[in-house]
């Protein structure tokens, strides 16, 4: 496995992880694209060193690069493309409903937590976001 690829994968995954922890869905979407690219690159580099185009009439089997991870990557790319679009639609809908695209806390959970703190003198701040 070549070092440049390893560093690239590590970089993509760390930037992706940072972005995914954000509150705003648009940042999360960017984070997912990064993570997805990182995962696809990892999959490609798992297939061994690069070689000739894996087509039967163009190169001999010994010098071909491994086609299986390429096929797997292609599937993964298509899936993550579709899901990115779905997430964008979700962000748009959230924007239309509430004016922002923040991922909010579980309301019911907050209500139950408030019940538990009913006797405490300081009310728990209801809206952290």
């Amino acid at each position, binding site marked *: 496995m070549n070092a440049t690829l390893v560093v690239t994968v590590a970089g993509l995954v760390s930037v992706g992880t940072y972005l995914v922890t954000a509150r705003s869905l648009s940042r999360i979407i960017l984070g997912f694209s990064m993570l997805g690219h*990182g995962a696809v690159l990892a*999959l490609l580099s798992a297939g061994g060193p690069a070689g000739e185009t894996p087509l039967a009439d163009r190169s001999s089997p010994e010098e071909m690069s491994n086609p299986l991870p390429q096929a797997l990557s292609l599937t993964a790319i298509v899936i993550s493309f*579709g899901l990115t679009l779905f*997430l964008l639609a*979700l962000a748009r809908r959230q924007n239309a*409903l509430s004016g922002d695209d923040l991922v909010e806390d*579980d309301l019911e959970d907050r209500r139950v937590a408030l019940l*538990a703190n009913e006797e405490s003198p300081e009310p728990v701040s209801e809206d952290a976001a």
Partner: protein
Amino acid sequence: MSTVVALSVVGPLLAAALTLALRARHRLRDAVVLTTLVGVTAAAVAILIEVERSGTIVVRVGGWDPELGIVLVADMFAALVLVVAMATILVVEIFAIGQRRSAAGADPDVVVPVLLVLTSGVALAIVTGDLFTLFVAFEMILVASYVLLTHQGRQGQIRSGMTYVVINLLASTFFLLGVAFVYAATGTVNMALLAERIPELDTGTRIGIGTWFLVVFGSKAAMFPLFSWLPDSYPTAPTTITAVFAGLLTKIGVYSLIRFQTLTDMVDLGPVVLAGAGATMLVGVAGALAQDDMKRILSFHIVSQIGYMLLGLGLFSVAGVAGAILFLVHQIPVKTVLFLVGGLVESTHGTSSLDRIGGLAMRWPLLAALFAVPALSLAGLPPFSGFVAKLALIDAAIASKSTAIVIVALAGSLLTLLSMTKIWLGVFWGEPAGAPAVPSVRGSLGTMVLATTLAVAGTLAVAVFSGPLWDMSERAAVELLDRQPYIEAVIR
């Protein structure tokens, strides 16, 4: 017989396309869906009979060698879970057709095709013989579930849907990275070849891969501490959809976990799984006790019950894994029917909040009975199916001398009973709480009650046939832990 295995995956997909074309012709569309689901269920039963009689069925898709191509494998474990899963989807669809005639249901133009895609994904996840196809099957299930959860576009659904989608996407990305790791370490994604090669890796790599997939499948299965997305998102969806999710999605996670961990011989991770199992049981049931809405209580119970299946896996003994399989088989219909009852309450009373309903036992004794049977079964009281499954698990834990987990499991059961009593007191007992705002249900209620009754009958059947089911679970567990039958069936 191999065609039947392939058809159980392809059939629902073709039907999904057909129902998209039949949007305007409702009766014809319902007929197509029911025929498909009945057909798939029948196919699953046929597969189970064939597997019982003459062993594992292997399909090499396109005739490719297992090292390169996709294989579908129906062994005892797969066939057993397939039958229960398909029958459950069928019952929920009957319920949904009933509900569709009332106004409260989800938009059938969206739900019908997407549910069929989900069915296909579930079938594929169960019978697939390679890790990457399992990833694709998970994506099919998840994409369908994202749409089902959020398609009505209500505020609460979008809010909890965002958490659900983000967490599951993260788990999927981890899955993909895991596939890359496995491929780098072994040069294959075929599960039978992995079963040969992963145990030969050095300890560090092997445990690393095992832990990685424990996290991946654990978050799909809502294992502690990866469960927080579940109780938030499930109750917001329409009932029929929550019922399918509750019965199937997390269980497919557990199924894949059992499949992967036994096939790659991750005995060393047993104690980790056991600790996770104990925490899942207790935290889930404690969460349920804190809630006061029927659907939310039941959602927390999904988490808690996952713990029992993990307990069986964590023991890594034949009795333990067989117990986990039997528990899985009992849990799918029980969980589904509890949500269907929740749906009946909600569609006749407009709410499932415990404070705003009451006294249903007097007004509608049939519904009370339909709730009582699966609720007692969930808590593990004899003579219901939950008792048989829990007895098997606890027996296995005692045999493996894991006293701590036995105590935790029994405490969990007691608390389950307690929170079921809470629903019973709030919804069915006592004085009828005011005049409920009843939305009109017209003639559809009969179909919904029929579907729920069918599902209750299913859970009772699990109890009545627990003898043969136990034999099949045990045979499945022996095959899983031995690993050789699977490897030989696929490679030779």
